[in-house]
């Protein structure tokens, strides 16, 4: 029986394993050094904040793995011998594979800052990081500084805030998540995060972390020379593929493990998926390395098909994503970049309370809808996906905006206000249609 070995029990590796099992009877082993069972790293923050227990982050009950004959191994892979098709673990085990899937994920970036390895300085990626920050919190955190204004940074800020620990946020740009969010949204979110009492320091970068007598961080010094009290420093300036253990082997590595569109590496019978993979030729307009949950899932599922006989290229649909910043949810469909591109126009609507907004981007000439950012409003994925597929224009999208509303029942709806502002700003005459289940459900079916 063919033996499929997967290194990494994150979303990409586990999805691959599950689908290989669904499609075949191959022997499957998953090796991970992080946890015994698959868990959702996206939920790490909720464990720290006391919303959930760690068990709750595990999407499958322990009996699932046995039932599905997926063998789990808690071990660290030190080395892979690609020519012999073998790998070596820290438990001195040698495991032979017929096919190897590298789904080893990421690790937080560290840019060689002075003091980056002190006690009290960490990223937020793994279960060990969670345990570490818990331990530090019990010892006491007087003031936290977070370096890097992205998604994980704001999660870390919310975590500390939930335990009444004052937080200072060093952000290189002039607004929150400035390399991704357009100015309006960046400002809206910055305002909201500030409302919670988080201290933002924009256009500030970390220079150095200073230790106290016990080797624990005690303050940070910024590039501009500011000194900020901090016995906890969160490093959240992005992540990079976690591939150091593969360096120096025959495996082709650049920033990540280099793969073709079918996830094959330069070594035969070796594939890479998820955060650690780098597409040699990225799919139209997507990044070579995609570090989000659903792309890991899609890669895992697609590779499983290929391992079981299909010849499928990675072909995700239109971009989408979501996040939550303290109390404000964010969803995006299609592409909305931080700066408007040539030939694009935009329409931005914001609720007077400053916590809800929608930002539409479309082609100036053809009016074709390109993407939307929504804050404080939930939108229907299927419907937007269909509009993008059908190449609808912005007027159509706005006229049918009610179809896309996914807010809970009885929520105040804003489509009227959005459309009338659009009409007056753009001198258009879009007429808002009432919601049609027929249209919505066909979107679901296709």
């Amino acid at each position, binding site marked *: 029986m063919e033996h499929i070995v997967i290194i990494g029990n994150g*979303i990409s590796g586990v999805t691959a394993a599950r689908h290989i099992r669904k499609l075949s009877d191959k022997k499957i082993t998953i090796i991970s050094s992080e946890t015994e069972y698959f868990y*959702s790293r*996206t*939920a790490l923050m*909720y464990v720290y*904040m*006391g*919303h*959930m*227990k760690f068990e*709750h*982050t*595990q*999407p499958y*009950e322990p009996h699932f793995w046995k039932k599905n004959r997926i063998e789990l191994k808690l071990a660290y892979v030190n080395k892979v011998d690609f020519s012999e098709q073998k790998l070596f673990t820290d438990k001195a085990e040698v495991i032979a594979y017929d096919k190897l899937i590298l789904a080893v994920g990421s690790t937080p970036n560290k840019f060689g800052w002075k003091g980056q390895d002190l006690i009290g300085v960490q990223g937020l990626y793994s279960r060990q990081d969670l345990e570490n920050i818990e331990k530090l919190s019990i010892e006491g955190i007087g003031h936290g500084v977070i370096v890097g204004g992205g998604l994980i940074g704001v999660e870390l800020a919310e975590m500390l805030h*939930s*335990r009444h620990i004052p937080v200072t946020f060093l952000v290189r740009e002039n607004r929150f998540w400035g390399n991704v969010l357009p100015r309006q949204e960046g400002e809206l979110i910055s305002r*909201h995060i500030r*409302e*919670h*009492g988080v201290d933002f320091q924009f256009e500030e970068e970390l220079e150095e972390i200073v230790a106290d007598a016990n080797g624990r961080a005690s303050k940070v010094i910024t590039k501009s020379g500011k000194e900020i009290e901090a016995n906890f420093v969160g490093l959240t300036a992005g992540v990079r593929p976690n591939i150091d253990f593969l360096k120096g082997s025959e495996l082709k590595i650049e920033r990540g493990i280099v793969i073709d569109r079918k996830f094959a590496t330069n070594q035969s019978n070796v594939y890479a998926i998820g955060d650690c993979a780098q597409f040699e030729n990225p799919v139209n307009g997507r990044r070579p390395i995609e570090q989000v*949950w*659903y792309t890991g*899932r*899609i890669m895992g*599922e*697609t590779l499983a*098909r290929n391992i079981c006989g*299909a010849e*499928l*290229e*990675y*072909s*995700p*649909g239109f971009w*989408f994503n*979501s*996040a*939550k910043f*303290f*109390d404000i*949810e964010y*969803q995006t469909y299609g592409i909305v970049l931080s700066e408007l591109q040539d030939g694009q126009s935009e329409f931005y609507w914001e609720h007077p309370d400053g916590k809800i907004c929608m930002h539409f981007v479309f082609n100036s000439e053809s009016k074709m809808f390109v993407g939307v950012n929504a804050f404080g409003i*939930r*939108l*229907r*994925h*299927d419907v937007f*996906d269909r509009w993008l597929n059908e190449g609808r224009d912005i007027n159509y999208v706005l006229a049918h905006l009610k179809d896309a509303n*996914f*807010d*809970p*029942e*009885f*929520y*105040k709806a804003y489509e009227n206000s959005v459309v009338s502002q659009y009409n007056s700003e753009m001198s258009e005459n879009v007429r808002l249609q009432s919601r049609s*289940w027929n249209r*919505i*459900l066909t979107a679901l*079916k296709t």
Partner: protein
Amino acid sequence: MLRTIKYFGLGLFLIGLVVFTAVNFVGEYTVAPQKFEDWVSSKGIVSELFLQEAREQIVGNAFTSFELTSKLSELAEKSHQFHVDRIREWESEGQVSQDSINAEWSKVIWLDWSKTHKEFTYPLLQKTVGGAVADHKLLFLFLTFGLGILGGLLYILPDVVLLGPAGIKHHGIYHNSATNRGWVGISVFAYLIVFYCTLYFFPAYMVNSIIITDPVSLSLSGNSASQWFMYGFMYCVVMTVMAVRMYVKYRNNTYQIFRTTVVLFFQIAFAFLIPELLVKFNQPWYDFKNAWPLDYDFFFGWQLDQLMASGNLGWFMLIWGVVLSLIIVPVMVYFFGKRWYCSWVCGCGGLAETLGDPYRQHSDKSVKAWKIERYLIHGVLGFAVVMTIMTLIVRSTGDQYVFGLENYKVQSWYGFFIGSIFSGVIGTGFYPLMGNRVWCRFGCPLAAYMGLVQRFKSKFRIATNGGQCISCGNCSTYCEQGIDVRSYAQKGQNIVRASCVGCGVCSAVCPRGVLKLENAPNTGGSRMEAPEVVLGNDGLKSLLKK
């Protein structure tokens, strides 16, 4: 400052609780001859042995509640034994006439431990209680319920500011011993269990707690408070105060605000005020929203007799009850899901959604629990249906025995095990340990019935938003019904489950906007089938299409 107010409120609340509990250890029960004779005739006691001994030992004397109840039970048991022995003797001798034996039978006092105190001793204690509490009911109403309400509100309201901007803050739930099955949670559990057992089976031990609410009862129905009145009043008070907590916690969520308001309204108006006013106007106590088979005794003989004897209104109630259960309930479930009842109307649901909200995370999400749930809840539904059919057969044939079982016994078993122990003692007592919907999930026959309609024939579903789920598990953690919502959401599958009560909290806590409660048409399996490919993997989707 606000924190101080909170703790002050907590202090007041605890004082109220302590007073409410402690009043039952004071007071004197002086059995005046007239009161004793009234009680005797209301209970129809004719055992001369009992009467003689009771007149000697009880009448004219003063007791504590514990002394009086145990004295009464002791004498009753003794007299029971005496008459039964005598009948046995007569029967074996075979010389005494059947008429005398029958007369002797009527002297036997039948006691069943689960009913002794609520039906036998309680009425006498309630009439004979004296002491500081009985003399100052209004004052004690303030010192118990008043302080409880005031303290509760002072504890809750500062959160408007303390919790920061609107948004659900589940911070620290698993760090707090009250909400993480710690010592506070276990103490609350123990208190609730003792409270419910006393209320259901030993109300004679809590007479003072009950009569404190006399002023309210008198002003509503003109009667003095029974234990059910006190409980009903307390239920409304607790729900109201905890509804305020819901308003604070979920103030960003209109669905939660509406739902809380409506369920509170139904409790106060339909379960409490209207029935009391009906009684005031000499009509049967009737809760217009209580549907069979949750209202398991709706078809019991005494109930039907009472309704039929109450003129047009009685007949209306009877017909309404049948129409509600057999037509309105399923039709509404078809259009809106069972949530219209379970989390918008029902009293059990109302308490679960207010008092129980802090405990919703304790429901067991395992597949095993789901299995047990299906056996139990459908078992109870079967029990309720069989019992009702039996009752109706008995009514038409007049023979107490059906299928070799005595109807009255079956009714008592149901009333004891399901009506009292399961729905009350376990249903509410276990909030802090097993979550706030133990009864609704494992026991309620109406929920089981509506669940079948919801599962197989309804427009209701929780829609999943394409591929947005990140499997974080907030939805499953906070599902009070123990549904593993995530297991559906991460597959892009809508959630259609018999047990879903549509509280809307999964949708509220989902950080990625994945879930939406929806009543929508059903076209081509879109309601509950998992898509072959989760939205986003276009390559695989087109492969499978080919």
